[in-house]
Each structure stands twice: as structure tokens, then as C-alpha cells.
């Protein structure tokens, strides 16, 4: 399980869009906006945080992964290159039609113990056609200028818009490193 923050006024990697895609309701929303599994579950505003967030995580932890994924990240100058191998086990073909995407969220290890890291860089790429059961590989990168290599951390999230869902995305699998 990984808990990460983003600045709502400077969102990165289209992740805030995932929240709003799931919310899909006009009008005012109240901070914090939170989600697991790319918007498969969301919540917002003042709430019974421990209970509500805990229930969200408990539910998410019982769900099966929709992909097997291996990620190798290499720092090359000012970029972090992600080499991803992914096997689709979702039961659906992944493609542009269901907005299948790989997103890297890059953050620095917090200096304070128990602090929640803040996403500072991202990279993203679309998953081209990958039938259920098939394995594919791709490479994409995130610019990491100014980040200390020794404290740079990342998570790569594979997600898509499942059949039957008109707006809420779902995470297939995620891999963190180093």
C-alpha cells in the first residue's frame, strides 16, 4: 500500500482528472479529494477519516490485480526512463478505446518519518492494443531535473476505463520503486 499526496492547485499526470471522472458531478467539492484504484473509489471533504479511508483501503486490498507488471527505472541525465513489461489479466483488451494508460508518479522520500510524500514529477504513456492474456512492453520517461537521485522514488500505475463504467477508471496494477 502506498499513500501519496498531490497539490490540488498544481495537479500532475492527469490523476486529479481521474478523481473528477469518477465524481462526474458538477458543483463544489471539498478538500481533501482522495481516491484509490484510480477513482474506482473516491471520497472528499470532512469525514470520519480513519474509518472511511480505512474501509476504502480494506476494500481495495481484497480486489484482484488486473495485470502482471514489471518495471525497471533508469536515471539518464535529467530523465527517469521506465521500461515496463505488462501482462494483461483483466479479461478485457486494453487499448486506446478504454483509455488504458501507464502513469509514473515521481516523488522524493520525505525527510520526516511518517510524512506523506508529495508527487513532484510525472510521466505517462498510452497502452496500445493488448489482448487479455498477452504481454507487451513499452518505454516512457519522466523529467526529473533537480531531484536528488538518492531520494527519488516512483510508482507506475496501469489503469483503464473498465467495460460497464462510463466514467470511473480502475487500476490494473501498480509497481513502486526503487
Amino acid at each position, binding site marked *: 500500500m502506498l499513500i501519496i*499526496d498531490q497539490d490540488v492547485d498544481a495537479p500532475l499526470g492527469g490523476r486529479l482528472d481521474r478523481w*473528477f471522472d469518477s465524481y462526474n458531478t458538477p458543483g463544489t*467539492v471539498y478538500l*481533501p479529494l482522495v481516491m484509490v484504484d484510480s477513482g474506482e473509489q473516491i471520497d472528499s471533504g470532512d469525514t470520519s*477519516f480513519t474509518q472511511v479511508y*480505512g474501509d*476504502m483501503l480494506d476494500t481495495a486490498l481484497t480486489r484482484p*490485480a488486473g495485470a502482471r507488471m514489471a518495471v525497471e527505472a533508469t536515471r539518464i541525465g535529467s530523465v527517469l526512463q521506465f521500461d515496463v513489461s505488462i501482462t494483461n489479466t483483466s479479461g478485457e483488451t486494453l487499448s486506446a478505446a478504454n483509455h488504458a494508460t501507464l502513469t509514473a508518479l515521481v516523488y522524493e522520500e520525505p525527510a520526516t518519518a511518517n510524512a506523506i510524500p508529495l508527487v513532484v514529477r510525472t510521466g505517462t504513456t498510452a497502452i496500445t492494443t493488448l489482448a487479455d492474456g498477452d504481454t507487451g512492453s513499452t518505454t516512457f520517461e519522466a523529467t526529473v531535473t533537480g531531484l536528488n537521485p538518492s531520494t527519488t522514488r516512483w510508482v507506475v500505475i496501469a489503469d483503464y476505463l473498465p467495460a460497464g463504467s462510463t466514467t470511473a477508471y480502475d487500476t490494473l496494477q501498480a509497481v513502486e520503486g526503487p
Partner: protein
Amino acid sequence: MQRWIVGIIVAAAAAAAVSAQTLYIPASANADGVNQTRWRTDLQVKAVGDAPASFTIELLKTGVDNSEPTTTEHTLAASESLRLGNVLETDFDYAGTAALRIIATDGGILATSRTYNDDPGGTYGQTVPAVIESEAFPFGRDATLIQLSRSPDPSAGFRTNIGFVNAVDSSTAIEVDVFESDGTHLGTLTRNLPPFGHRQINDVFHAVGADDVPDGYAIVGTTSEDGRFIAYASVVDNGSGDAIFILGGVEVASLPLDPRLVVFESFMRPG
């Protein structure tokens, strides 16, 4: 779509997300059975570690909607272990069968139970363990129950009862496939569990029309996408009434292929 995002002061928002500990005792009784048996359940709860604990017990009556269950509260001193004898009677003044939902409202707890025939000549019965809520089976993952039997002789061999607890606050449809040990499919049963409902199918092999099944198994799943359930079997000796309790297990083939990394993302205004 226009977005309006309003910040509020949320001191606790960044706190680690840890849910209250919730446990289920899938079966309990305070009921008279066949052959003058008197079934009772003793519940044991212990505070873990060196801290005191508080917990509630919710009575999930068999066959009804338990969205608003009767609840009792208890407090444990640090390291204390509490035995609640015939808990359905003493805590709830309830006669019948039920599941129990135990929620640690403060601290952590360990729980187990025994359901037994309170015979004057000596008791016999079965341990019914507590099941952590997160171990309830979701849609897409089946529970397998093995070591099941049925004898056509009501005074010899065994009979098998299968029970379920709904772990969510909405109806959950349950599907039970029953097999002989060689994989021969004997039949399918469906039941609907109301919110936090508890149900039991007695003599499950007979319910699918099977007569003599020395060794069998059952696979239980839900067809409700939001459903989550706990499944168990009680295999009863027809001669003595003694029973063994079997919790639904996960077959390796139905486990997720990889450990799943869950990412919790929050969007806030730093500072």
C-alpha cells in the same frame, strides 16, 4: 465541467488510514436442537498488547436484515481476556442462531468462540474462529469448503450444513456449487443474503438431491459485484451430534496472480 474546489481545515486528513478492527464470528447459537440438544456459544475476547481495549458486539440474526443490529459494548483492561458465556443469552437475551460482528472501538482485540451442546453429562461442540473482515470473499473470488460428507443413514456417518455471513450493508447473492470428491457436480443452490445477513443451508447435499456422499466439497461465490461474504461448513456426526467447523478457503488458482499494490492518492493544498 466547471470545477470548484474548496479547501477546509482538516487536521486529521493526513493521518495514516487505519480502519477499526472488525471481526466476524460466523456462527453462534442459543437454541434447542434435535435429540434434546441445547446449543450455546461462549465468546472469548482478549485485549492485545499492553493497552486496554473497547469493543462492540453486533447481533446478526439469522435470516433477517441486520443493517441496524442490536449492539452491546464491553471494555477490557490491558492484557485482560473476557469470556462471555452463552453470549446470545447474556448479552442479547436472544434465543436462536446468529453471526456476531465484533468491532474494536479502541485498541486491538483477539477473539474466538465455541458453540457446543450444553449436555448435563458433558459438553461437546466446535470452535468457531473469528474472521477478519478483510478476509471476507469479494466478487470474483470463491470460497472452497472441503472435508464434507453425507450419509443416508440418519444415525451413522455425517451430514453437512453450509452457512454464510454477508459482510456488506447491501444484499449479496450467494451461489453454492456442490461436488463429489472426484469433481462430479451435484448441483447448484442460490441464496440471497440481506445486509449483514446470516443464513445456513442444512444438509446441503440432500438439498441438491444427493443421498450418499462419503467425501465432497463445495465452492461458494457471489454474483453481486459489491458483495462480500464469509462461508463455512459444519459437518455433524449423525451418531453423536459432534461437529467440526470448516472455514472457506482460497484455492491457489483463484488467488490474484500478483500481490496487488494499492495506491491511495490525496489532493490537498500543502500547508
